[in-house]
């Protein structure tokens, strides 16, 4: 007897069949170790009318986890579907609930995009955790029938000088690069924030975007009795077992054993081959339904495919190709091994399907078929080990109305304004002080040059990248004939959201909207990744409820629907949660990406007029300037969505009509940072005066430079367009003030009457920070 046969024999001996479960109701099951709560286990018993088998328990435990079931957030997330106008539905081809939402781009093109978290795996094993985050989100995009065309990665790490931050950032950035670069997907942007609140809980969110023709849209359902179920791609191994339940749905605690085996291991080469192979399957219309294997592996794929289709499926688990022959049925069902897909194939396409697999040398195995029984039956060597209604696994999980309340400390936090605090005393006032403050700001961890990270990513592959970081949005051409394309930006501000979750979430949305519009694209749709602490803490639950309410209200007002996303909870160490961090990804559309607006002026822009759009208020609370001084309190900048909409319309029209050559949104760091970044983009200086601005808005030079008031942007306008541009802004009754001119002969940023900042000096400070800490 061979070792494999022996193992099968052994497994059969220990097999917990459905018949066995019915006959032995008293058997103790390890439901708590698998992450289920007592009431949840009792619910499983009630649903089945008997105790679950070991395999069924494995399935329910992962599918009913917070990560897969959204049991704490679902009640609140409904608002994204409820607060939607008819106008917002117009271009939505596939909404929330599928692997990713799909938006109509016109000309028969559709775009699908989604953002997801891979926070906990990255904390434990930074390289593989971050790499498989990219891998997973890319498979979601393929599952929709699309060719992936770009990725983005909003990242948040602990304090820049904490020793563990270097471990996490080196691994995470190399992992994202190592995986994404190997897939041939340009990385076109993201975010980088350092804050000690993320010390034990780094946030690694990953976004992927794909494009397809309308007729190529695929959905995850198993229809057509007698159609075959096939698993293809990488073999199933022992990695990532219980990733969704025991990693992503609990808080970390030093007293527990290492969870490293729960992190998946990625093989980007296998995924690249899988992408091309799947696109050939789609082109030949060889699959009826398709689902990627991510969180909860085969448990998720079988139960979701079955419950979204005709409701029944029967599979033989011994047919699964394994890397490790000793895996138990439960482990096979829970494994989150990467680079796997499950598809439903009609019998007449089997031969063509197999030929495509063989061409790309992809392994596959036929597991079973679609039935109309309404049951998901999983067998092991012919014996039934799972017999469930797939809806009870995939969709009818527990739902919690978690208690929440405004934290007792929220009032005191909001009353502690920057300017009333000790940190807010002795603010820079003289020209020299303002200059030193700007240099310090632009060298600070959150505002410094990010090319240490972005240079580790391929931003060119594909030949369709029209803008990438550090520009305000990443821009990808979709159609080479017409120039049709998309813009994407991701934004969040944990400090703003901590001060005021409702408005903080709206500010993230407003910034992403502004960034997309600044690039010249029309904002169309949103995907969000809600990173929060434990929902079992009423303070955190309030933050989550408020953020969702704020975000959904603002989406309705701005007219941009949420098409999908992800919730990541339990991001906390002990009882200390991270700042609530709702990351918003905005998708915009270009009729022609040639019209995109870069975020800096070139030497040939000499003499162009620099205008500031929007109003500057005294808004320093929660700002980067306050952050540098170690202060966090007060209220974040005011949200004005009507102003954001008007500003967006001005920027989009100005781009389309050729009135502006460059534009940059004002956000963290305010006007000072924005001017510095625009000048550094191509190393071209400018002469600026703040007097008119200060007089009109009633602020001093310090506030003008460092306030983070919203709905503002800087634009550079060619002389010939100045009248037209001013007329447009005035006609829309939007505040606009001329600040100065681009000066190609100058190598400095001159703030007249205040200081003259040499660009070489600024660049040195701006670029030295990350290499200093990370080599």
């Amino acid at each position, binding site marked *: 007897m061979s070792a494999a046969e022996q193992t099968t024999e052994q497994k059969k001996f220990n097999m917990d069949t459905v018949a066995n479960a019915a006959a032995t109701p008293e058997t103790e099951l390890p439901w708590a170790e698998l992450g289920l709560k007592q009431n949840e286990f009792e619910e499983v018993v009630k649903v089945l009318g008997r105790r679950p088998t070991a395999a069924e328990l494995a399935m329910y435990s992962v599918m009913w986890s917070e990560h897969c079931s959204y049991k704490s957030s679902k009640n609140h997330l409904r608002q994204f579907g409820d607060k939607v106008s008819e106008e917002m539905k117009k271009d939505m081809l596939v909404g929330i609930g599928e692997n990713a939402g799909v938006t109509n781009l016109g000309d028969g093109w559709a775009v699908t995009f989604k953002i997801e978290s891979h926070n906990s795996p990255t904390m434990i094993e930074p390289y593989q955790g971050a790499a498989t985050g990219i891998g997973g989100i890319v498979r979601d995009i393929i599952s929709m029938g699309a060719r992936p065309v770009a990725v983005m990665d909003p990242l948040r790490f602990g304090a820049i000088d904490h020793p563990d931050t270097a471990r996490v950032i080196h691994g995470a950035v*190399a992992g994202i690069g*190592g995986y994404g670069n190997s897939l041939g997907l340009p990385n076109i942007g993201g975010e980088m924030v350092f804050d000690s609140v993320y010390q034990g809980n780094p946030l690694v969110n990953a976004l992927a975007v794909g494009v*397809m023709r309308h007729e190529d849209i695929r959905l995850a359902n198993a229809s057509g009795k007698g159609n075959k179920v096939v698993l293809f791609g990488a073999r199933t191994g022992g990695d990532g077992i219980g990733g969704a339940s025991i990693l992503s749905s609990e808080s970390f605690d030093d007293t527990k054993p290492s969870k490293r085996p729960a992190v998946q291991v990625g093989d980007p*080469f296998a995924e*690249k081959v899988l992408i091309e192979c799947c696109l050939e399957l789609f082109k030949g219309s060889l699959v009826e339904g398709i689902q990627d294997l991510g969180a909860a592996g085969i448990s998720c794929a079988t139960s979701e495919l079955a419950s979204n289709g005709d409701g029944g499926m029967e599979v033989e688990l011994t047919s699964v190709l394994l890397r490790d022959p000793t895996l138990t049925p439960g482990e096979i069902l829970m494994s989150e091994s990467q680079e796997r897909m499950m598809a439903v194939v009609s019998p007449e396409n089997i031969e063509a399907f197999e030929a495509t697999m063989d061409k790309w040398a992809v392994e596959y195995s036929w597991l079973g078929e679609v039935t109309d029984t309404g049951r998901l039956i999983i067998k092991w060597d012919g014996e039934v080990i799972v017999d469930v209604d797939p809806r009870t696994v995939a969709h009818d999980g527990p739902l919690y109305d978690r208690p929440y309340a405004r934290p007792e400390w929220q009032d005191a936090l909001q009353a502690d304004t920057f300017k009333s605090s000790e940190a807010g005393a002795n603010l820079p006032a003289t020209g020299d002080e303002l200059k030193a403050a700007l240099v310090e700001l632009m060298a600070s961890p959150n505002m410094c040059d990010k090319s240490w990270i972005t240079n580790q990513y391929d931003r060119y592959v594909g*030949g369709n990248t029209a803008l990438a970081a550090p520009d305000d949005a990443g821009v990808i051409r979709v159609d*080479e004939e017409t120039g049709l394309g998309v813009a994407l930006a991701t934004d969040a501000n944990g400090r703003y959201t901590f001060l005021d979750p409702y408005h903080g979430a709206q500010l993230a949305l407003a910034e992403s909207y502004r960034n997309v519009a600044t690039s010249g694209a029309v904002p169309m749709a949103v995907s969000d990744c809600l990173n929060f602490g434990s929902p079992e803490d009423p303070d955190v639950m309030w933050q989550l409820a408020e953020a969702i309410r704020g975000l959904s209200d603002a989406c309705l007002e701005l007219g941009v629907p949420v098409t999908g996303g992800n919730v990541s909870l339990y991001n906390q160490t002990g009882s200390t949660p991270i700042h609530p961090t709702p990351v918003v990804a905005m998708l915009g559309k270009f009729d022609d990406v*040639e019209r995109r607006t870069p975020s800096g002026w070139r030497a040939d822009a000499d003499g162009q007029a620099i205008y500031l759009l929007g109003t500057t208020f005294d808004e320093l609370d929660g700002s980067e300037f306050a952050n540098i001084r170690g202060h966090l309190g007060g209220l974040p900048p005011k949200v004005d969505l009507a102003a954001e909409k008007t500003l967006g319309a001005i920027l989009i029209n100005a781009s389309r009509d050729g009135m502006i050559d460059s534009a940059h949104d004002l956000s963290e760091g305010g006007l000072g940072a924005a001017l510095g970044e625009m000048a550094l983009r191509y190393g071209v200086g400018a002469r600026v005066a703040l007097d008119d601005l200060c007089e009109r808005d009633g602020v001093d030079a310090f506030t003008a430079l460092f306030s983070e008031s919203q709905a503002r942007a800087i634009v550079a306008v060619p002389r010939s367009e100045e009248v037209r541009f001013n007329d447009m802004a005035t006609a829309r009754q939007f505040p606009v003030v001329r600040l100065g001119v681009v000066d190609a002969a100058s190598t400095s940023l001159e703030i007249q009457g205040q200081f003259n900042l040499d660009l070489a000096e600024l660049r040195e400070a701006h670029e030295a920070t990350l290499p200093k800490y990370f080599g």
Partner: protein
Amino acid sequence: MSATELPLIGDYSTPVAALSGARIGVVTFPGTLDDRDAARAVRLAGAEAVSLWHADADLADVDAVVIPGGFSYGDYLRAGAISRFAPMMSKIIDAANSDAKLPVLGICNGFQILTESHLLPGSMIKNDHLKFLCRDQVLRVENNATAWTNQYAKGEEITIVLKNQDGQYVADEKTLDALEAEGRVAFSYVGWNPNGSRRNIAGITNAAGNVVGLMPHPEHAVEAGFGPDHTGTDGLGFFTSVLTHLVGGQK
């Protein structure tokens, strides 16, 4: 397929008739990434791009071949080490060494495959700083007498995209001396050596000048708006050079 459809890898459409009538093959291995970009560069230069699949042993009557960048076979074992044994590579090696001297350009992973195939000497190891690096890179054209560089001036500086993890060119001293003495260094890095390559070598040619390999990516610098700094088109000369070479107009 319609002109607006996204070409699948291995299925390049040529929406407009090729201007020169030349057929330039672009090889796809499992894990190749820049094949669509290389095909686009060929088309923009005015030739027809012909898809060549690694497992086929038929050159499809192409007039020249581009082996594009990527991570063929995941760079597992060693970059280019497995691809070198593909049936298509045997055909390319024979054709490059034949009297007809088929022009062959290897870019990045393609360069690595060419050294593994012994069409070019030396090898590539991990960058000296150990990280993947993507940047706009200035190169000096050291040899403008090859099939792929004749549209450049000798000493001309061009900016194209560099992006790799294993880009450090190494060879023994004797080989390096010979490459320099025989004028077979085709491109060198200017300003900064981005990966520790010996003698700042970015690309080399064989003695006949038909086989050229380099680490940076000319195919990412062929279209204004999508190249280095979103403006540069300095890479297009590689592809117009081979067309000039094919019609016998080599300088």
